[in-house]
């Protein structure tokens, strides 16, 4: 207990020193029991600052160091590394946060100085009790899972696989490809979406390191970084895909009919179907909800015509378990359902469609073979109104955020419409046109040059009047009310996370923001990681983004996975909550409160007596302290934050 503790107080420029009277702090701290040396520095985190700490540790033969500076989330690891380099166990270095918790929030200089002293005294008390700790080693399964088979998921899977690691790619739909497969042409270069995507889809399918599980969903996840066990539910396709060769005979005579999801309700698909001709894998599935065989048992035409006898009406859902070391979440987006936007008449008004429907209309493989025809009567619309921010940037009724891609795809829609209907009017209602991106502003300019009319203002109402769809809006540049009689209206719906991602987040225990997008670990510096070690993010499931951004983020996530896999073992931070087996009464309270599933109740021989005690999975423990507070017999103490330690810290903090 007779530790020699060194205290270093950082000025942080004027951030701390401008408020806290550093000389006074040093004078007081110097007299504390155990404090062998005190120093201050303008910037402790700088090289000279760190060197000063190292030198001090050596010259004063310090047993522990307290750095009074900014929040530990910023520089705890910096200073721990510094003391480690001179032979001190890094867990004997503690941070006293006198910036965020003191100088930034306490304007009065005397008050702030007193407060800084209290904060430092608390950490000195803590350091007095700190024990040297060693990192916990964890083995790594060098195999990844990617959830979501859109362009982001495909890219992440390919990058990881090309680095030589196995990948399991899980997709909920029968085919990979995601929304990008539905698009006609992509901004700002107008290259055909499917033409650039399908080679990647095929590459993923044929890659020897990629195991493709389509028509499948993640049912359960257990384990921790490097060692996940994922249970995948495989939905029954009612077709043996190993036997089927994708000839498509079964599709021909099937009598079942339903609106095609891929064409967003603008064409019919059959009960046995593949989402689109280029589907990967090129295998059909049977939709039991509309299949005559499942409803009445009176049809088996697909089974009759299948030359390979691959139809299996008795197929059941099955589960496979995959062991992986990292999981990439690439669940993508869905368009915001505007059914509550009754002023837009969505769902009630014919020829009011969403952006993805218009993509299908424009697509050569779409319901109109690429000819612009409106859904109600197949007429060529001579005037089309495009409404941006349909649900985006609408704090009251919709989503407060900007969906980011709509300005660009609306410019593209309007342009492509003009390319195909030369005498047609394309009118865009917008709040702002946001063209941040390479070649984006030029693309928007091109749209206006090609005759697309931009009206700055919001649309208040859309309704059907006879053959026309009437749009009410405002031109906020002239301050006038605008009424347009259009033949068709295309809405740029806000982007939202997929509904399935909510369920997945529950299974993964992954954090999401208020809108349901997966949360990155840090908005700027850790944009592809999550707060749960081993989960990485790619694509629009993390937030609205366009194709290049989704692909870039996917490669970033892949790179993080590859980096993780470059280690044979991982180390886990050793401050965890352990268990005092003698004291433990086996009540199990801590099992219920642990948010990480790190604790389980087991029967065990403790000093020759069988008893129920807690077993701690040290790798899962994040040292949150929930168990320590809940334990009635103080058996779940956190390392370097023991009850006695906390007691002393409280006393030191309140003293004087």
């Amino acid at each position, binding site marked *: 207990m007779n530790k020699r503790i060194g205290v270093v107080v950082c000025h942080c420029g004027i951030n701390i020193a401008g408020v806290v009277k550093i000389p006074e702090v040093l004078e007081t701290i110097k007299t504390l029991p155990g404090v062998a040396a005190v120093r201050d520095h303008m910037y402790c985190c700088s090289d000279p600052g760190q060197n000063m700490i190292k030198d001090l540790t050596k010259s004063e033969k310090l047993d522990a160091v307290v750095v009074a500076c900014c929040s530990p989330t910023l520089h705890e690891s910096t200073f721990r590394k510094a003391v480690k380099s001179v032979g001190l166990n890094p867990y004997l270095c503690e941070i006293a946060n006198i910036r965020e918790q003191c100088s930034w929030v306490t304007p009065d200089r005397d008050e702030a100085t007193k407060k800084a002293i209290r904060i430092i005294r608390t950490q000195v008390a803590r350091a007095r009790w700190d024990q040297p700790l060693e990192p916990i080693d964890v083995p790594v399964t060098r195999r990844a899972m990617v959830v979501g088979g859109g362009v982001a998921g495909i890219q992440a899977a390919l990058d990881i696989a090309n680095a030589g690691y196995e990948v399991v790619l899980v997709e909920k739909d029968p085919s990979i490809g995601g929304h990008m497969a539905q698009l006609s042409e992509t901004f700002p270069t107008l290259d055909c979406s499917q033409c650039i995507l399908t080679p990647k889809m095929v590459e993923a399918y044929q890659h020897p390191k990629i195991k493709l599980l389509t028509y499948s969903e993640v049912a359960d996840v257990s384990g921790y970084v490097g060692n996940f066990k994922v249970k995948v539910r495989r939905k029954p396709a009612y077709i043996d895909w190993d036997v089927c060769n994708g000839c498509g005979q079964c599709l021909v005579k099937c009598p079942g009919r339903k609106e095609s999801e891929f064409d967003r309700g603008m064409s019919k698909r059959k009960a046995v179907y593949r989402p689109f001709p280029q589907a990967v894998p090129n295998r059909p599935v049977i939709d039991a909800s509309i299949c005559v065989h499942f409803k009445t048992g009176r049809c088996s035409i697909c089974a009759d015509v299948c030359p390979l006898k691959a139809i299996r009406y008795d197929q059941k859902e099955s589960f496979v378990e995959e062991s992986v070391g990292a999981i990439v979440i690439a669940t993508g987006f869905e368009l915001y359902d505007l059914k509550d936007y009754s002023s837009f008449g969505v769902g*009630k008004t014919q020829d009011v469609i969403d952006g993805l429907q218009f993509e299908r209309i424009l697509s050569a493989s779409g319901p109109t073979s690429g000819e612009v025809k409106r859904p109600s009567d197949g007429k060529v619309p001579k005037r089309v109104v495009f409404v941006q921010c349909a649900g985006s940037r609408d704090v009251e009724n919709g989503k407060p955020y900007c969906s980011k891609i709509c300005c660009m795809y609306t410019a593209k829609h309007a342009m492509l419409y003009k390319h195909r209907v030369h005498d047609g009017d394309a009118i865009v209602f917008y709040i702002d046109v946001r063209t941040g991106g390479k070649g984006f502003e030029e693309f928007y300019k091109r749209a206006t040059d090609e005759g697309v009319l931009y009206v700055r203002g919001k649309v208040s109402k859309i309704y059907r009047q006879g053959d026309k769809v009437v749009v009410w809006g405002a031109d906020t540049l002239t301050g006038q009310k605008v009424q347009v009689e259009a033949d068709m209206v295309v809405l740029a719906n806000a982007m939202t996370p997929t509904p399935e991602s909510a369920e997945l987040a529950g299974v993964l225990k992954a954090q999401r923001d208020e809108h349901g997008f997966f949360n990155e670990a840090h908005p700027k510096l850790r944009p592809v990681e999550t707060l749960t070690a081993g989960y990485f993010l790619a694509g629009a499931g993390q937030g609205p983004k366009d194709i290049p951004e989704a692909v870039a983020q996917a490669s970033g996530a892949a790179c993080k996975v590859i980096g993780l896999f470059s280690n044979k073992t991982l180390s886990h931070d050793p401050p965890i909550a352990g268990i005092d087996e003698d004291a433990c009464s086996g009540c199990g309270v801590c099992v219920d409160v642990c948010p990480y599933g790190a604790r389980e109740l087991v029967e065990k021989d403790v000093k020759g007596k069988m008893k129920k005690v807690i077993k701690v999975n040290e790798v899962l423990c994040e040292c949150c302290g929930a168990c320590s507070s809940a334990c009635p017999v103080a058996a779940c103490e956190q390392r370097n934050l023991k009850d006695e330690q906390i007691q002393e810290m409280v006393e030191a903090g309140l003293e004087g």
Partner: protein
Amino acid sequence: MREFTYYPGCALFTKAKNLDQCARMSAEILDVRLKEMTTWNCCGAIFSTVSDDLASQVGPIRNLARASSQGDSLVTLCAACYNVLKRSQAWITKPGNETTRDRFLNFIEEEKFDPNLKVLHLLEVMKNDIGFEAVKTKVKKNLKGLKLGSYYGCLMVRPEAEMQFDSVDNPMMMDDLMAALGAQPVYFPFKTECCGGYLLVNDQEASLKCAATIINSLNAAGAEAVVTTCPLCQYNVDNQQKILSERVAGFKKLPVFYFTQLLALGLGIEGDVLNLDGHYVDPKPLLKAKGLLS
């Protein structure tokens, strides 16, 4: 029988007597008594949004203060009264307005002001306290086959944050009541657009345009009549059809009802109280054709 403190408002004692009387009689059938406030004055007719226009708040606040000692809620019928009273309540109970409130109470010489007093529209009482299912069981004359466009006007729903009545774009409360009476609600896209009533004196043409949009849309949607809660809407939409029918060849007129007229009719109330002769567009032929009037 449940009692609600009731604020009729001026129009319901003059032009819109049938809106008031049909409501009172129907409520009795539905086991609710609308107990008129002991003393009341004009609601102010328009909620003033001028920041220093305290004088125009005196009227509604005095009504609210008086209602405070007569019950925990205040039911009203006229869309304008509902709008003004509810917004005044929201304004004066807003945190930070306590001093202003005390000054008001001092000025109008009222002691009590209940900040939790609920300003309700009769439609809300019908939906939440009586229940449309209960209304169904009391129907004597089913309005079956009557295609009705429920026109709420601008005052019932806006501004949304303060009114909290129903969807701003597609409110359904009146539609649901009409459906409970057996009628067939018709959707049309102008349920909450302004009828132009406030422009009637200044700019008749503008007002006419508003009314025409509503009537034309209802005709296109196949409605046979309009239902409203607002005396001004009723008057304007009904009477503007006179000019419209003079100007537009083949213009199809639609009778404009108060919802309480049809409620009363459905509950079996007959006679002068309905005041079916007080309309510009005579509703009797339609009601006769549907077998609702002999």
